[in-house]
């Protein structure tokens, strides 16, 4: 019985975590974006600073009619948002918030993340195809082509980390970054991977992550001025909310993965033992917040690329660089 209780608690905590974090990120996007555009942004909902705006938006979406086009393949059309949301939610399962605060400490954690996150493409393709709309189909195809192209640099950047850490467990990777790297006299120095020669890998990972998220400058799949809303064109109501939540949840998820892989996860110099379990979530959230803000900032500053430019960027720059990065890291590892 203990197992089932734990399972239920874990699922509920996970869902709450994902929901609140995506609501917070949505709010951050609304606010940060509006301040970058010299607007106020949400102001009234919730009484102060419009904090309840994301909730209000969510409620609004929930009560909207759930439309589906006449020519659509209803089953596939209905399942698509769940596939996308599922693939993003599953990422959270393996993210360690502290040495012991992890839902499932998978031996193959990183591998799991990559496998699961590749499923969202399936959902997007389903959405694009089943909508019976040419814009949707083109958007879905663009998304798939883009996600496949950027899956490679993403995986290759992760491979370098795995090589450096010598494990595929996310917890193990964090611990590898908290290990003493060298000592200055009596002062032990532990550095996250980004400071241990993984700058290139981190940059590649973040670029690929933004591309996986289909956000500006890589938002061709939903490019509003070209494909109206791409694969989202026909969606409304709760199904649209799923995609929307999924986008922000995976923003948090990928930022969390980036923070774990490159920035030392829940670790912070001087925080060890029980303190790591107590302060760990806060530290990780702080690191996630920085990355999320970076992604938001990019969105409100840049235009979008063109599909062919995006592809050539992935194949001619990111993948060779990522391979070089692996070679460097592996060489580094062999030498030291």
């Amino acid at each position: 019985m203990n197992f089932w209780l734990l399972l239920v608690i874990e699922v509920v905590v996970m869902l709450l975590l994902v929901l609140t974090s995506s609501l917070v990120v949505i709010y951050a996007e609304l606010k940060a974006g509006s301040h970058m555009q010299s607007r106020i942004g949400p102001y009234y909902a919730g009484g102060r600073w419009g904090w309840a705006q994301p909730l209000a938006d969510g409620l609004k979406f929930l009560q909207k009619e759930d439309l589906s086009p006449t020519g659509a393949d209803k089953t596939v059309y209905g399942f698509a948002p769940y596939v996308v949301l599922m693939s993003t939610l599953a990422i959270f399962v393996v993210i360690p918030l502290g040495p012991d605060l992890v839902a499932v400490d998978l031996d193959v954690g990183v591998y799991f993340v990559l496998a699961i996150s590749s499923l969202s493409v399936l959902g997007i393709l389903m959405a694009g195809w089943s909508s019976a709309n040419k814009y949707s189909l083109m958007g879905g195809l663009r998304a798939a082509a883009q996600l496949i192209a950027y899956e490679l640099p993403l995986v290759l950047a992760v491979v370098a980390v795995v090589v450096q850490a010598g494990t595929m467990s996310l917890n193990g990777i964090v611990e590898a970054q908290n290990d003493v790297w060298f000592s200055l006299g009596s002062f032990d120095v532990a550095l996250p991977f980004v400071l241990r020669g993984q700058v290139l890998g981190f940059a590649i990972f973040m670029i690929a992550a933004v591309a996986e998220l289909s956000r500006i400058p890589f938002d061709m799949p939903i490019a509003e001025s070209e494909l109206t809303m791409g694969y989202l064109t026909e969606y409304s109501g709760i199904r649209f909310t799923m995609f929307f939540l999924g986008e922000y949840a995976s923003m948090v998820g990928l930022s969390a993965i980036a923070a774990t892989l490159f920035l030392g996860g829940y670790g912070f110099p001087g925080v060890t033992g029980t303190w790591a379990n107590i302060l760990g979530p806060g530290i990780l959230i702080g690191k996630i917040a920085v990355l999320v803000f970076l992604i938001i900032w990019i969105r409100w500053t840049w235009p979008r690329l063109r599909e062919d430019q995006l592809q050539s960027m992935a194949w001619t720059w990111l993948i060779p660089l990522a391979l070089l990065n692996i070679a460097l890291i592996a060489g580094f590892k062999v030498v030291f």
Partner: protein
Amino acid sequence: MTVSLADWFREAANWAFMIIAIPTLFAGWRTVTSNNIVRAVLYLVVSLAGTAALFIMLGAEFVGWTVVLVYIGAVIILFLIGIMITRAPLGVDADLSHARNVRTPAAVLGVLLFAVIGYAVIDAFENSMIEPFEPTATADLANLLFSRWVIPFEVVSFVLLAALIGGIALARKDDNGAQR
């Protein structure tokens, strides 16, 4: 040691197996009977996901996630892109409904294949039990793959190439159609 049917049902793992296996079987069945190519592929996804889940149940986590990453995340997606770019009508595709003279041999072949594999598995393992919930260490797997099984491993990677070629072959017009 043989187990009675009642004992079999008392075991939670067996229930889990049934919950996974029945949809997997159904999806496999629909994959070959579906009238729409995209739907057929999506059923194949379900059936592959079920297979992956069974692997994970057996403790072969790495293999399970490999099925997800390689088959669903790569092969199926490439395949879907291929057919969606070229021909992916919604609704029933008459081209996919095969005549009985094609179906019957296919069904016979399937049953035969099942019988052969089933016999081989039972013959090899008989009643030996697999310890549940004890994942195989990935490191061991890696060591095996890169020493003893390295050539089969590389050969298997051609499956991606096969998927690509299959996509192209599907996209090409038949000879009696106009050439692009």
